[in-house]
């Protein structure tokens, strides 16, 4: 081997070493704080454990069997999350799409203003949003009921958050109120990626506004839609803070959601093994939902 070759070899090794050194802190933190708890979630889910005592009892799938077949409250919470996700997917995202089309294609002025205003709620903390709305919807002190009475529509006033008929709907509305700005912004970004010439071509072919929307806008928004649907599902199904401060899952279990259930199971009932089994179930539900909808949309386009 020639001298420069050896030198280059050493230099390469030195370079690669440096790269490993640069990556090491990120990998270390991720392995310890991200990956280890991820693996532990599954391991703990096979035990009965109060989180404190040194003894853990290995119970195989008993936690899972109990959650899957006997725990009505758990399934109630999953059902509620599905309702929230479904309403967000259909109504919140349709509104977001409508607003994005209006702001992106139908007006010339104040676009920036609308963008900033519509994206304001997602910036706020879920706790702050939840508390403000809890007060607005409060049966005695809330501005909504007082407003209804002022407008002589007192018969519509009700205990929005403490009656089973309206609690989940109200929580869902607040989650959508906070979430639509996200979808709006992504739709808007998707619209800006559509070249104007596509619309002009459709116009030459004699398409009207609705046809243009159907033929050009919808297909070209497919990738934006895909991301929005996944983000909406993941976001709403893991709602926590909003529900915690608005109703804490009540009345009864009418607004209970999975992450709140998991939190209570671990830190109020001290059933760590059981709670991690719930997390694993929820994780698997979420992963399969995103996978499923990824497949479906892929087939369509």
């Amino acid at each position, binding site marked *: 081997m020639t001298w420069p070759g050896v030198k280059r070899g050493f230099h390469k090794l030195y370079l690669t070493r440096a790269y490993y050194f640069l990556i090491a*802190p990120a990998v270390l933190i991720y392995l310890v704080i991200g990956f280890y708890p991820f693996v*532990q979630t599954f391991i703990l889910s096979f035990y009965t454990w109060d989180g404190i005592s040194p003894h853990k009892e290995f119970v195989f799938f008993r936690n899972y069997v109990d959650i899957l077949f006997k725990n009505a409250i758990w399934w109630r919470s999953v059902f509620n999350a599905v309702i929230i996700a479904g309403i967000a997917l259909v109504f919140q995202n349709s509104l977001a799409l409508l607003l994005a089309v209006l702001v992106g294609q139908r007006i010339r002025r104040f676009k920036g203003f609308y963008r900033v205003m519509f994206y304001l709620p997602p910036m706020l903390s879920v706790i702050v949003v939840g508390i403000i709305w809890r007060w607005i919807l409060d049966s005695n002190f809330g501005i909504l009921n007082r407003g209804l009475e002022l407008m002589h529509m007192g018969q519509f006033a009700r205990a929005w958050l403490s009656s089973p008929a309206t609690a989940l709907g109200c929580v869902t509305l607040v989650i959508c109120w906070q979430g639509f700005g996200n979808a709006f912004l992504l739709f808007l970004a*998707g619209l800006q990626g559509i070249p104007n010439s596509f619309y002009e071509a459709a116009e030459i072919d004699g398409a009207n506004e609705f046809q243009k929307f159907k033929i050009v806008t919808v297909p070209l928004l497919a990738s934006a839609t895909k991301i929005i649907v996944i983000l909406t599902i993941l976001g709403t199904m893991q709602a926590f803070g909003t529900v915690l401060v608005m109703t804490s899952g009540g009345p009864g279990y009418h607004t209970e959601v999975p992450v709140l259930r998991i939190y209570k199971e671990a830190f109020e009932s001290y059933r760590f093994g059981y709670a991690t089994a719930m997390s694993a179930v929820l994780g698997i539900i979420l992963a399969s939902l995103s996978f499923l909808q990824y497949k479906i949309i892929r087939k369509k386009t």
Partner: protein
Amino acid sequence: MTSKKFSISGLFIHGFLLSVVAVNLFPVLWMISSSLKTQDEVFGSASMIPKSFQWSNYIYAWTNGNFQTYFANSLLYTAATLLGVILISSMAAYAFAQANFKGSKVLFYFFVASMMIPIPGAFIPLYVLLIKLDLANTRLGLIIPYINSGLALSIFILKGFFEGVPKEIHEAATIDGCGTFGTYWHIYLPLAKPAIMVVCIFTALNVWNEVLLALVIINDQNLMPIQRGVLEFQGQHFTNYPLLMAALTISTLPILTLYFLFQRHIIKGLSEGALKE
């Protein structure tokens, strides 16, 4: 081209959009306005403008309500997390962008996957781990998980940026005698300022608004970040709405300031970032 018919329909559109703006703004304005009212006023009138400004609500929340502590804690947690995320992720992103070393692709996808795969209950084993490490209920015990949650996105953004830097710059630096680390520190890191700013804004927003980990990891009032403090405060002043709203406004003001100062970067970063995936 712009006929009269166009402007009339435009008027309708603006009217509709403005009504959505009103629904968006109302809760925030209601919070700020109520924070300056008296308890009687809040129950008596529905006016947006307080009769006289009750700054005492803020003073009470700030001192007796402990918000001076919560606020300072959150500033500290945000600053420490930013420092950690920027340093650690820029090093990793630089390496990922530069080298095709053994396992680099696998490692990178590992990080990306951690961004995508939902682990809704990982906070339980994390809490157990922090107890074992004697880090539960400590500042470090909150900061390290915050750094971890910021890493993946930051590596993703910065790697994209570093890959766009012309190879000639790297070669020139090597010729000038800069080693791998020197090139990263003196050339690439300063170049990445705009991308780092985007990362900073998003990380700061996330840390300031984070609830779940703060709830699980911190119990000591003196260590609580601001959203955790809000939870504590609202438990004690459940229906003292002016006080509660003053507390909420204190916790929201930094977010609003950051948002209106950097809205261009925030909106641009979000629109571009999400659609890249």
